[in-house]
């Protein structure tokens, strides 16, 4: 639609590799006038706009550039934010940093083998990684 008004944008009929969102998140955001207007012009619900962004943020694409349209579009924005946070606050040590080392090594292996973020192995690494973190969190709270 508006893509046709800006010929440099090419409308993609089908989104690729949409992971299923799993963790419900209900938050209050301050929606800008420009964001609301574009959603009204395109008839995109606010939830859908943010869901699409969140769906395409992947650890794999942080480490490797898959050159895939939608993931690349989302990661481009995410990396800009990351860069601005690092320049403002510096690099921080992640919570549970030791638990991130092995999964990241495994993802690096997958990436070097050019397996891509859609392979089953990647999904399995992410699931296992997340559950390991949750276990550690549970352990901390008990």
């Amino acid at each position, binding site marked *: 639609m508006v893509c*046709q008004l800006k010929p440099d*944008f090419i409308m993609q009929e089908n989104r690729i590799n949409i992971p299923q969102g799993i963790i419900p998140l209900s938050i209050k*955001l301050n929606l800008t006038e*420009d964001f609301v207007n574009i959603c009204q012009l395109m*008839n995109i619900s606010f939830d859908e706009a943010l869901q699409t962004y969140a769906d395409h*943020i992947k650890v794999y694409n942080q480490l490797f550039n898959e050159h895939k349209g939608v993931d690349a579009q989302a990661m481009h924005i995410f990396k800009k934010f990351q860069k601005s946070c690092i320049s403002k606050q510096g690099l921080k040590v992640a919570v549970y940093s030791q638990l991130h080392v092995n999964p990241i090594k495994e993802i690096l292996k997958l990436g070097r083998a050019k397996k891509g973020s859609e392979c089953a192995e990647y999904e399995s690494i992410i699931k296992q*990684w997340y559950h390991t*973190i949750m276990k550690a969190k549970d352990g901390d709270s008990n």
Partner: protein
Amino acid sequence: METQINIKISYDFELICMVFSLNTVDVLQDYVNRISLPKHLSNHPDDPSGEDLELILCSTKTQDPKVIDKKIVKFLKKEFKQESAKILNQGLEQPETEALLRKVIKNCCPAIIKLRQDLRKQLALDFKIVGDDN
């Protein structure tokens, strides 16, 4: 405009935020803040090539059924493209161009909502309209 947003995030999203010590709400708010058609069309230095807008313009699902798409495009070409072209051809400075484009877009929104409402009624279609139903 503070609004309640309900989405589902993936493990991937949660993990990447954790690894880089980013707050998920801040990540999403930053996305909202980057979306600006007037800034892009006026070649704002923050995003002159419009990369920040590609995701919402080209890859996000609209609530419009395909059948009304042509009518909406026709309307936008008439009401929005012509008006914005006039502004862009004036050779104004970027901030002035941005402000004028914002006005055009703001004025266009109620008209496009009305058009969708009319089309929904005329064609007996069932779909939601941002600014009316959600």
